[in-house]
C-alpha cells in the first residue's frame, strides 16, 4: 500500500519552484493553495500563494484599523520605494531577475520591461508630488493651514482603505495606485495571476521603504476572496474581471479599455508623422491602453495603411528576452485563440498586414504576435474600437460629415490638425480622456499628468472648514 498517500501528488508543488507569498498584516503568508505562474513557453516559473477569504477579511480589517504614516513620512517613503523598486534585491530577486521573470511570463520584450521598471519607479517616487496636482485650487490639505481660520475647503479622503485589482497587461499599470498611499489610504493589492511579480516587488519595496505591513498588503486569491477584498475596502480600483462586475458601483473605479486613436486631417501631411504613428502602435509591444488602436485619416486611408503596414512588417519575430525584440509573445494556444478571434472580427475589412494570420510560432510553445493592419470602409465601421494586446491597428477614412462620433470613448487621442474649432470640440468631448495636439505619440506621458483623470479625483473630496 506504499503508493497510497493522503498527500496527492498533483496538489503538491513541484520542488524548486519559487513561491510568491501573500503579504499580510503580519508579514509573508505562505499558503498550501497555490496557482502556477507559467511563462510563454508553458514552463512553470513560480507558484503564487492564494489567500483564503478568511485571511483576506482579517487583512482588510487590519488595514482599516491601522493609521496612515504622517504626510512627510509618506512622501519620503514613496521616494525611497521608487528607488528600491528600480535597484534593490527584493524577495530574493535582483532587478535583472525581476525583469527577466516579467519578460518570460508577460511575453513583453525585455526592453519594454526595462523601460517600465524605470517609468514605474519614477511614478512611484513622485506620487506624493503628483497627487498634490489633483488637489482643487480652492482647497488645502491640512486643517492647520492658516487659511482655514477664515473658511477654506479642505481636501480629505473619501475612505480609508482602497482595494486595487491590478491588470496583468503591462507592469506600468502599477505606477498609479501608490498615489493612494500618498494620500494616506491603506491599500490591498490583488495581483494579476498572469504577472504577479510587479505587484509583489512593489509591495515589498513600499514595506522596505517604511510603509507598515498593515498599511499595504498583497492578496493574491481566487474569485471568492477577491470579492472579499472589494467588500472589505471603502473604494476599489482596477481592471480585472472582478472590478468589471462592480462597474456600476460609484465606489469602484474601473480601468476602461484605452481605444486610443490618432486623427490626421487633410491640412496635415501624414508622411511627416509616420514615425509617430508607427511608434504609437508598436511601443510597449503594442500591449498598452495608450497604444493606438485606430487611425482616422481625412482622405484616402490606403497610402497611409500601406506605409504603416510596410514599417510594421519589417519588425523581427524574436523571443521576448532578445535585446532586439519589439513584438509581444504569448503561449501558442492563447496566441491562436487571439488570432481566430481577430480574423473573425476583421471580416469585411481590407487587410494590409496579418490578414491571413499574425501568429509566428517560435517552436518552444510560444508564439510572436506580429502586427496587423486593417483598412476599414468608413469611420463608423464596428471594428474601430477593437483593442487588442498586440500591435493591431484599424485604419479608416474620416470626413467632416463623420464629426467627432468616431473619436469618442478614447483614452488618448492624438489629433494632428490645424483646425482649432475641431480641437475645441475634442477638448470638450467628455469621453475623450486625454488629447495630444500635434505629433505626440499616444503613449506620451509625464508624472503629474492625469492618465484617465487624476486618481485623486476618485479618492478625495473637498469639504468646507472654518475655525474660530
Amino acid at each position: 500500500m506504499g503508493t497510497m498517500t493522503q498527500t496527492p501528488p498533483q496538489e503538491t508543488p513541484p520542488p524548486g519552484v519559487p513561491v510568491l507569498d501573500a503579504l499580510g498584516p503580519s508579514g509573508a503568508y505562505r499558503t498550501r493553495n497555490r496557482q502556477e505562474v507559467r511563462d510563454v513557453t508553458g514552463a512553470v516559473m513560480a507558484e503564487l500563494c492564494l489567500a483564503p477569504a478568511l485571511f483576506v477579511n482579517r487583512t482588510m480589517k487590519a488595514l482599516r484599523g491601522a493609521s496612515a504614516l504622517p504626510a512627510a513620512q509618506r512622501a519620503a517613503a514613496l521616494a525611497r520605494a521608487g528607488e528600491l523598486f528600480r535597484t534593490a534585491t527584493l524577495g530574493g530577486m535582483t532587478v535583472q531577475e525581476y525583469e527577466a521573470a516579467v519578460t518570460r511570463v508577460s511575453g513583453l520584450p525585455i526592453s519594454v520591461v526595462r523601460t517600465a521598471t524605470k517609468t514605474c519607479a519614477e511614478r512611484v517616487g513622485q506620487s506624493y508630488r503628483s497627487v498634490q496636482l489633483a488637489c482643487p485650487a480652492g482647497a488645502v490639505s491640512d486643517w492647520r493651514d492658516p487659511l482655514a481660520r477664515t473658511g477654506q475647503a479642505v481636501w480629505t479622503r473619501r475612505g480609508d482603505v482602497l482595494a486595487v485589482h491590478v491588470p496583468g497587461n503591462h507592469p506600468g499599470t502599477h505606477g498609479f495606485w501608490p498615489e493612494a498611499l500618498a494620500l494616506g489610504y491603506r491599500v490591498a493589492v490583488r495581483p494579476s495571476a498572469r504577472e504577479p511579480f510587479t505587484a509583489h516587488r512593489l509591495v515589498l519595496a513600499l514595506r522596505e521603504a517604511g510603509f507598515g505591513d498593515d498599511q499595504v498588503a498583497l492578496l493574491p486569491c481566487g474569485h471568492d476572496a477577491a470579492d472579499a477584498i472589494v467588500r472589505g475596502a471603502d473604494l476599489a480600483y482596477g481592471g480585472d474581471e472582478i472590478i468589471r462586475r462592480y462597474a456600476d458601483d460609484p465606489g469602484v473605479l474601473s480601468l476602461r479599455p484605452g481605444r486610443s486613436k490618432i486623427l490626421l486631417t487633410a491640412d496635415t501631411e501624414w508622411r511627416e508623422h509616420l514615425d509617430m504613428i508607427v511608434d504609437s502602435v508598436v511601443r510597449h509591444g503594442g500591449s498598452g491602453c495608450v497604444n493606438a488602436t485606430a487611425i482616422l485619416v481625412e482622405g484616402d486611408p490606403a497610402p497611409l495603411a500601406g506605409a504603416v503596414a510596410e514599417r510594421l512588417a519589417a519588425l523581427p519575430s524574436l523571443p521576448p528576452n532578445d535585446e532586439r525584440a519589439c513584438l509581444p509573445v504569448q503561449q501558442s494556444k492563447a496566441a491562436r485563440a487571439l488570432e481566430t478571434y481577430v480574423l473573425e472580427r476583421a471580416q469585411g475589412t481590407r487587410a494590409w498586414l496579418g490578414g491571413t494570420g499574425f501568429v509566428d510560432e517560435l517552436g518552444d510553445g510560444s508564439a510572436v504576435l506580429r502586427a496587423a493592419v486593417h483598412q476599414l470602409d468608413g469611420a463608423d465601421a464596428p471594428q474601430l474600437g477593437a483593442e487588442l494586446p498586440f500591435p493591431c491597428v484599424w485604419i479608416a477614412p474620416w470626413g467632416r460629415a463623420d464629426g467627432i462620433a468616431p473619436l469618442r470613448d478614447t483614452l488618448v487621442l492624438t489629433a494632428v490638425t490645424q483646425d482649432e474649432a475641431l480641437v475645441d470640440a475634442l477638448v470638450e468631448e467628455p469621453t475623450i480622456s486625454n488629447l495630444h495636439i500635434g505629433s505626440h505619440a499616444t503613449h506620451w506621458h509625464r508624472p503629474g499628468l492625469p492618465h484617465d483623470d487624476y486618481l485623486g479625483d476618485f479618492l478625495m473630496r473637498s469639504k468646507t472648514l472654518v475655525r474660530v
Partner: protein
Amino acid sequence: MARAELSPLELPYDADPDPDEVVRAAMRWHFSPETGTPFWLGRAASLEFDPLTDVKCYDDLRLFPNVANELRDVPAADLVPRGYGKHPDIVGVYESGGTTGAPKRVVCPRDWLEKLVDWSNANLDVHGFPRGVDWLGITPSGPHIVGEIFRRSAVTHGRYGFQVDLDPRWVKRLIADGKAAQADAYAEHVVDQAADILRTQPIGVMTVTPPLLDRIAQREDLVELINEKVGAIRWGGTQMDADTEQLYRTEIFPDTALYGHYGSTMILGIAGQRHGTPLGEPCVFDTFAPYITFQVVEPETGRPVEYGRRGQVVMHHVSKALLLPNNLERDTAVRVAAPAGSIGDSAAGIAPVERFDNEAVIEGVY
C-alpha cells in the same frame, strides 16, 4: 430476537457487517413485494438486470443507474419501504439544496437517524467534543437533514440545542440576482442572533457553516466569547480549505476542537473528518461505511482516479431506510484510501471547480 439473527441492515452502528451481505440484504429488502420500496418496485421493471439475483456484492451496485434526478418528483410516500409497516416511524422528509435544479427529496426513518447519530457521536468523542454541554446550531433547521442531525446530536451528545435558522436557498437566490448587499445583511442578521445566544447561554459546542464562521471570526467580541466558552466547533455545509482550517486552529480558535462534516441530504447523512490530520493538510472525510460510501472517479469514464488524484465524488447509500447508489455529486475531491477494513473511498480537499482567471479573449488590454 438474538443479535446473531438480526439482518445485516439492523445491526448497531459499530457492528461492522460484511459489506456484500449488507448489499444482498438491501436488495431483498427494497425489491421484495412485502418489504420493498414502492419507488424501486416500480422501477425494477425498467432495470436491465434483476437486483435480487444479479446484485451479489458491493461492486455490483454499479449496475444501477443514477436515479437521483427522479427524486425531484417522486411522491415521498413511495420512498418508504413497506417493511416499515402501516405507520412507519418517519422523522421527516428532507430536501437537497436545489443548487442543480429543483430540490430532490428523501425520507428518513427514525431507526436510521439513531444509528447515524450514534456513529457520529462516537466520532465527536474521538475529536474531543465535550459531552453534556449546550449546543448552538447555526444551520438550516429544515428542509435539509442537517437541522435534524444537529438537534439529535445536541440532545444525545450534549444537553440543550439552541438553533438559529438559516435559509441557504434564499442566500443563493440573492447572490444569483446580484443582491450581494442583501445577502450580506441576511448573514449579519443570522450572526447577530447567534451572538445573542452566545452571550446569554453556556454554549459548549457550536455547529456552523464555514462562511458564517468566517463572519463570526471578523467580530472580535465573538471570537473572545467562543475562546472563552466553546470547546468544540463542528462545521459543514460547504468546504473549508486547509489554509483556512490552519488559520482557525493556530490563530483564531487555538484551543477549540475543530471538526468538519461533509454531508448531503441525498445520503441521509454525513461523512466525518478523520482525526489527526496534520496542520496544513486538507481534511479527509471518512464515511459511515458500508451504509454510506464514496467513490472518487473520472467524470468522463466513471472509473476511479488514482489515490491522491482529484476526481468527482460519487455517493452511495445502502440501508434499510434508503437505496440510492451511484449519485454523482457536483463536488470534486482527492481520492484517499478508506480506513483499514472499510470499503469505498475517503475524500480529501473537497472543492467546487474554480478558476482564477479565464483564458477567453476579452477585448481591451486590461
